[in-house]
């Protein structure tokens, strides 16, 4: 190396090890200072929010009355914001732009919504709902019976091909025919009554549960529907029309949906929280997002609970639990094929599942053992009469299998148990526990085969079914036993056809007297459990964490001891809307500020 070059190199600035450490430390401190998210401590008590509602004592300022929720978009598609446009492809925060005829309270009772009252006709073939006058859409028009009529007709229109049309088929007069294109949609049994605030629903025979089913009457604006030709006008802030307390301000189905206060709201239910943010995540773990204050609430899995228990911030948080949509997880059989066509085989498997241990080991506290199809707390659900029909009794199980011709499992044919992965219900562990149980008690080997969800349902729903034995769930669609129990109706989802069971369901649906309905549905549940076309394994409980500053009676325990926001969640269909607010953040829980929401 030349002298010139050596000199040049000597003069170059260089970084010593000490200098590097000092610079790095200074940089880290600066980053920490910049990223520090503190929460304002100004109280909002007595202030009015953007909807004009006075905030309760202990509330955070009006500018912080927004609620941030996370939505996992994995496998989801977001096509619209309204139930009657699409049910299975609704975007986060859907169904907030209107008020349904009825709502649900915390105890799962139907309470007035847009309708202040209703009654069944003397011949029991129709129901009349009386709307509250003066509820206005944000375009200046009044909410009337015409909006409900047009919405329901739109749902029956064969060109619309609504993905939930089964719901009213066989219930509303001519609905099935309209969906099939045999009659025009305007001939379905929905019409204005004696005045514009009177809505008449004509049914195919007596239907006792219409008020429960009318939880799903979140109307579209008739004027907007006619103008735009479909219900997708509500995915564009510039065309969104709302008669609810919220209106769309941002719709980005890949990242976020934001609802701001509808300042033209004139309805009866004013929420303290007047802004909603739906953060859309393509998978990933929600717990860190909750811990860092990105979102105000999460639904937790059993694994999340284990992790949260080790974190200083979350370990003392109260775990809210409720059955949400009263989901039942069960193993079903193709009862038309051996060995499942033999009742004794099915009953043997039912009596060989130790549900209590399984739930305690793999799912607790987010599940309860299931002895029947309906979760305790669900309308007309019973449990005690069903336990002896399906309880864990290894001796009985072995003897039933022997009577069926497979003593100690000898000669039992090769069968495959299909399932699909679901983290919330830990299905991977559950199905392994079930097969181990059957091996241990009955000596039978059942092969497990995982399928992806779409393939699983495609095979299950084929007629005839392509799944001989599978593990699946069902969550309710509306609050009446007729809904859940109809899954096992003849010609339904599964291929068990029992005329006596179908007759009981038909009788129960038509009966108005609740005590008689209870008797009918108890008989139906007993028959279903005894005949064992499915083995009921567990009822899922959904666990929720809420940030400590989310408060209100919406989180309190209901009559069944469940707490947290009950189904159907925070929104227009539930009275939780008025019972939740953002309180002062006394515990300094981190909360990332959202701008431009309220």
């Amino acid at each position, binding site marked *: *190396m030349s002298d010139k*070059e050596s000199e040049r190199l000597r003069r170059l600035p260089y970084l010593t090890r000490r200098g590097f450490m000092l610079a790095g430390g200074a940089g*880290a401190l600066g*980053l*920490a200072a910049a*990223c*520090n*998210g503190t929460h304002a401590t100004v109280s909002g008590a007595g202030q009015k929010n953007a909807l004009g509602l006075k905030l309760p004592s202990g509330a955070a300022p009006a500018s912080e009355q927004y609620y941030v929720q996370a939505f996992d*978009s*994995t*496998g*989801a*598609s*977001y*096509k619209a914001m309204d139930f009657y446009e699409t049910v*299975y*492809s609704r975007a986060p925060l859907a169904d907030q732009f209107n008020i349904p005829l009825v709502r649900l309270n915390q105890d799962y009772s139907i309470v007035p919504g847009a309708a202040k009252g209703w009654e069944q006709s003397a011949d029991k073939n129709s129901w009349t709902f009386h709307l509250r006058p003066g509820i206005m859409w944000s375009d200046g028009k009044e909410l009337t019976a015409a909006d409900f009529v047009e919405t329901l007709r739109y749902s029956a229109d*064969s*060109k619309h*091909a*609504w*993905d*939930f*049309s*089964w*719901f009213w*088929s066989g219930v509303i007069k001519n609905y099935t025919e309209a*969906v*099939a*294109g045999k009659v025009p949609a305007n001939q379905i049994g929905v019409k204005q009554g004696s005045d514009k605030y009177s809505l008449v629903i004509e049914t195919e025979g007596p239907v006792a549960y219409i008020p429960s089913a009318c939880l799903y009457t979140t109307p579209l604006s008739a004027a907007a529907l006619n103008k735009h030709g479909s219900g*997708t006008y509500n995915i564009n802030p510039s065309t969104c029309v709302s008669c609810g307390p919220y209106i769309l301000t941002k719709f980005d*189905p*890949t*990242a976020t949906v934001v609802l701001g206060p509808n300042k033209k709201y004139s309805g009866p239910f004013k929420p303290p929280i007047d802004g909603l943010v739906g*953060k*859309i*995540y*393509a*998978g*990933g*773990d929600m717990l*860190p*997002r909750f*811990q*860092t204050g*990105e979102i105000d609430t999460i639904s937790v899995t059993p694994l999340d609970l284990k992790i949260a228990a080790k974190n200083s*911030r979350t370990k003392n948080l109260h775990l809210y639990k409720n059955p949400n949509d009263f989901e039942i997880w069960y193993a079903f059989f193709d009862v038309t094929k051996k060995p499942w066509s033999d009742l004794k085989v099915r009953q043997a498997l039912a009596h060989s599942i130790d549900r209590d241990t399984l739930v305690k080991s793999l799912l607790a506290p987010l599940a309860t053992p299931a002895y029947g199809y309906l979760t305790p707390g669900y309308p007309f659900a019973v449990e005690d009469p069903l336990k002896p029909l399906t309880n864990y009794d290894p001796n009985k199980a072995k003897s039933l299998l022997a009577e069926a011709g497979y003593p100690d499992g000898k000669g039992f044919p090769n069968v495959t148990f299909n399932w699909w992965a679901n983290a919330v219900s830990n299905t991977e562990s559950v199905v392994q526990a079930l097969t181990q149980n059957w091996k241990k008690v009955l000596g039978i080997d059942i092969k497990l085969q995982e399928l*992806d*969800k*779409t*393939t699983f*349902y*495609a095979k299950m*729903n084929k007629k005839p079914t*392509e799944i001989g034995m599978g593990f699946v769930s*069902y*969550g309710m669609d509306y609050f009446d036993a007729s809904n859940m129990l109809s899954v096992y109706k003849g010609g339904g*989802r599964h291929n068990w056809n029992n005329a006596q069971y179908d007759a009981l369901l038909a009788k129960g649906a038509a009966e108005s007297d609740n005590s008689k309905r209870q008797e009918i549905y108890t008989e139906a549940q007993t028959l279903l459990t005894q005949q064992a076309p499915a083995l009921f394994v567990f009822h899922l409980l959904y666990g929720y964490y809420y940030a400590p500053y989310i408060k209100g009676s919406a989180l309190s325990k209901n009559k069944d001891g469940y707490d947290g926001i009950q189904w159907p969640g925070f929104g227009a269909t539930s009275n939780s809307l008025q019972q939740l607010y953002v309180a002062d953040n006394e515990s300094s829980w*981190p909360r*990332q500020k959202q701008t431009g929401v309220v």
Partner: protein
Amino acid sequence: MIAYLAQRFLTLLLVMLVTTMLIFGLMHAVPGGPFDQTQQPLPGPAMANIMHKYGLDEPIWRQYLNWLWALLHGDFGIPFEQPTMSVTGLIAKAWPITLIVGGITIAISYLGGLAMGLLAALKHNTWIDWVLTSAVSTAGVALPNYVVGFLLISVFSVKLGWLPAGGWGQPEDLILPVIAFSLYPMALMARFTRASTLEVTYADYVRMGRARGLSERRITLRYILRTALIPLITIMGPNIPNILTGSIFIEATFALPGLGSYFTTASLHRDYPLILALVLIVAVLWGTCYILSDVAYTLVDPRVRLEGLSR
């Protein structure tokens, strides 16, 4: 060169055509369709309407030709899972995010890996070599990027609160995902750079250069590195499309609204237009990267001649 490139790109077009045919056939062979419902199946007439609306009631060969015809007119169709956008719009929205993360990842990991590997080789058998090779490189190759991601979130987001746990919209959202995503390619680059540099370091011409009195910097940069780069092009070139199409795990871990997640959701949802568009993107990227790698060879090593070209 131009004729060669033209030939390679024409071949790529043919490969893309065959690939789309294969994928189209496979998509329809898999059970389940895009509009199958889970809780309650769609009534027959409703399903028939939807299938007709999206042209899915046509024979498969006609569906393919319809799709190809639309493609030739620049129309990739409407994704079933996000029908409020076009496929082009969805990709145009998601891919830039993936490209930003991927681009920064490539820059950091390749340059960083190169520097690390070079340093490790030049300081062969010293503690620097040991740290860079055994600790950093091995850890980078062995640890899955989502594990690294969770560790980073756990430390920097949850415990320290310094950086966001995920999301997109602020510059700091890039930091943790890029670190997690860069580790593996950086480690790979470092290991291969070290190996190929060591191979060259003791070559005769390098020793000759030293004997002639050339500076160590000149020898390293002009002779050693240039030669060491040749095998690296083979290894790292094809890694670029992988990075530029996103990591499903990184995007899921850090909630990045990029393209990576659509590779799984499109398949799970049987979103045929989106699946085909993504397959085309991957095929074009892979093919182009291979072509560019081959061209890069000729720039780095004048001895290399591409097939079909004469001196």
